[in-house]
């Protein structure tokens, strides 16, 4: 009886994993398919047509991909920094308006993006921020902050301020205390905040379209028309590049964490 139930639960789990993996595998097949007509279950042939088009000499893909990654990395680092400050204030201090701050923090997740985007558009036009990279980065940061604040809040609460207080009591200056005592403990959280904020910024379509107004081209904005057009080979190749570049950034961040841990061990 017990085995039977455990079998049923494993079935649920592996069905889920299979349903998650299947489209990703099909995406790979489609990006390299040269012909895949009805009713075949596998492509009739493979080619590099899509990638030749993406990486061709006159293709705007690489420049847009790189500048888009730059924008998102900038957004990620800033969101992680602001998230760290904000979480520190909420976790370690008592102040007036604390509940309001933690409530307001969740709103961008819940409020519809179209309402905010269309509302802020006019404001940004007046401020001269519409159609600028800075404007796009600002709205991306607003949408990444709920996640980074939440991650940093967990980490800051679990680290606490006991080590910091000790360091201060022993006469270490606040800035040195922060760099040598607090920051190393917060680093894993900061790195996962950066990853999360990166993926949110990099995936943003509607906000970028509204605020960037076509003059700020990100990879997401560039690839949506291909998905709309129905060319499955090209749009699969775009999606694959999207996922691969994200994975590369995540691996880079992971490597930085390891490097940081190594450096910390050496200095201690």
């Amino acid at each position, binding site marked *: 009886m017990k085995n039977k*139930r*455990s079998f049923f*639960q*494993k079935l*649920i*789990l592996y069905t*889920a*994993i299979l*349903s*998650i*993996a299947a*489209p*990703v595998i*099909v995406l790979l097949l489609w990006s390299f398919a040269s012909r895949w007509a*009805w*009713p075949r*279950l596998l492509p009739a042939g493979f080619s590099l047509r899509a990638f030749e088009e993406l990486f061709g000499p006159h293709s705007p893909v690489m420049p847009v991909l790189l500048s888009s990654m730059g924008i998102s990395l900038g957004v990620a680092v800033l969101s992680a920094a*602001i998230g760290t*400050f*904000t979480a520190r*204030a909420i976790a370690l*201090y008592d*102040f007036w308006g604390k*509940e309001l*701050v933690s*409530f307001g923090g*969740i*709103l*961008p*997740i*819940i*409020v*519809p*993006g*179209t*309402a*905010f*985007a*269309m*509302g*802020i558009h*006019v*404001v940004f036009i007046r401020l001269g921020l519409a159609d600028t990279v800075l404007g796009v980065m600002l709205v991306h940061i*607003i949408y990444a*902050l709920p996640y980074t*604040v939440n991650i940093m809040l*967990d980490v800051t609460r679990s680290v606490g301020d006991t080590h910091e207080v000790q360091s*201060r*009591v022993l*006469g270490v200056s606040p800035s040195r205390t922060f760099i040598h005592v607090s920051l190393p403990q917060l680093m894993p959280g900061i790195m996962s905040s950066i990853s999360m904020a990166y993926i949110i910024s990099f*995936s943003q*379509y*509607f906000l970028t379209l509204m605020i960037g107004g076509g003059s700020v081209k990100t990879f*997401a904005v560039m*690839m*949506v028309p291909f*998905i709309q057009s*129905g060319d*499955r080979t090209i749009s699969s190749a775009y*999606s694959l590049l999207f996922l691969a570049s994200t994975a590369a950034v995540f691996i880079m961040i992971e490597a930085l964490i390891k490097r940081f841990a190594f450096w910390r061990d050496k200095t201690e």
Partner: protein
Amino acid sequence: MARLYGKVSSALGNNHIMRKLEPYVLLLPFMLLGLLFFLGIGNALLQSLGYIPALGLSELTLSYYREILQKPALLDSVKVSLAIALVSSVLATVLGVLLCAAMVHTGIAGGWRLQAIKLPILVPHMVVALFAVTFMSQNGLLARTLYQLGLLGSQGDFPQLLYDQNNAGIIIAYLWKEIPFVAYFVLALMSSVSSTLGEAAENLGASRLRTFFHITLPLSMPAVKKAFLIIFAFAFGAYELPFLLGATLPKALPVQAYVEYVNPDLRHRPYAMAMNSIMLLLTLAISAVYYWLLRKDFKGTGGGRYEK
């Protein structure tokens, strides 16, 4: 000894004055961005009431809301968005909790399997839309599989799941993303409840099913409720999937709002904003409930630790 004491008291003395100001200094960038956020939302609300001085409209009125709720075509948009959000989030919550329970009970809650479950959370909606096209269109892989099995006569016999008024494709695409989200969101709380009180109940002779429905699930409810509210609000107000997979008519609210917004006749703009505000008010009501749940958990027994 005296020197140390002096240092301690001066450090504490400084703290006393500084500590009042410090949190506000730390919060400054957050507050400035928050101000921008509320400017955006406030402006959307103001325009929905017909206040757009640039267009010579400066009288506050509720007439745009009234018109939307009276025009069948626009009311349909409201219904479409509600239906998509409700069906996808109820199904995703039930199935997500089931998946989470399976992960907790098989003890397979970490490693590569957890990474696989987390993957859809990281895949953007436009790529999910592409997945939906490759699988669910009438010449997609599902139709092909059924055809090869002899269960389908021709492409046309496969039900129209995309670009159709039934919105099935949008809902299934949301499920692909949201079931894992719910499972992951609830996992921390459910595995801690299950490994303590759940096992205690089983040791006292309760069956596993009974333990789950009477102990583990009720105690995991705070996380389940929050996950539901987040995905409901998101599916109600999100643009990408209805835009890429939805029917021409009626369009979901965010898509229809954008159509009104970019209409060259600027007098359509208040309609766009009124549609946005309908979404805004409903989602704000949802977030008020979320906040209330959050506070209740803080006051309750430790549930606040898992708020996320």
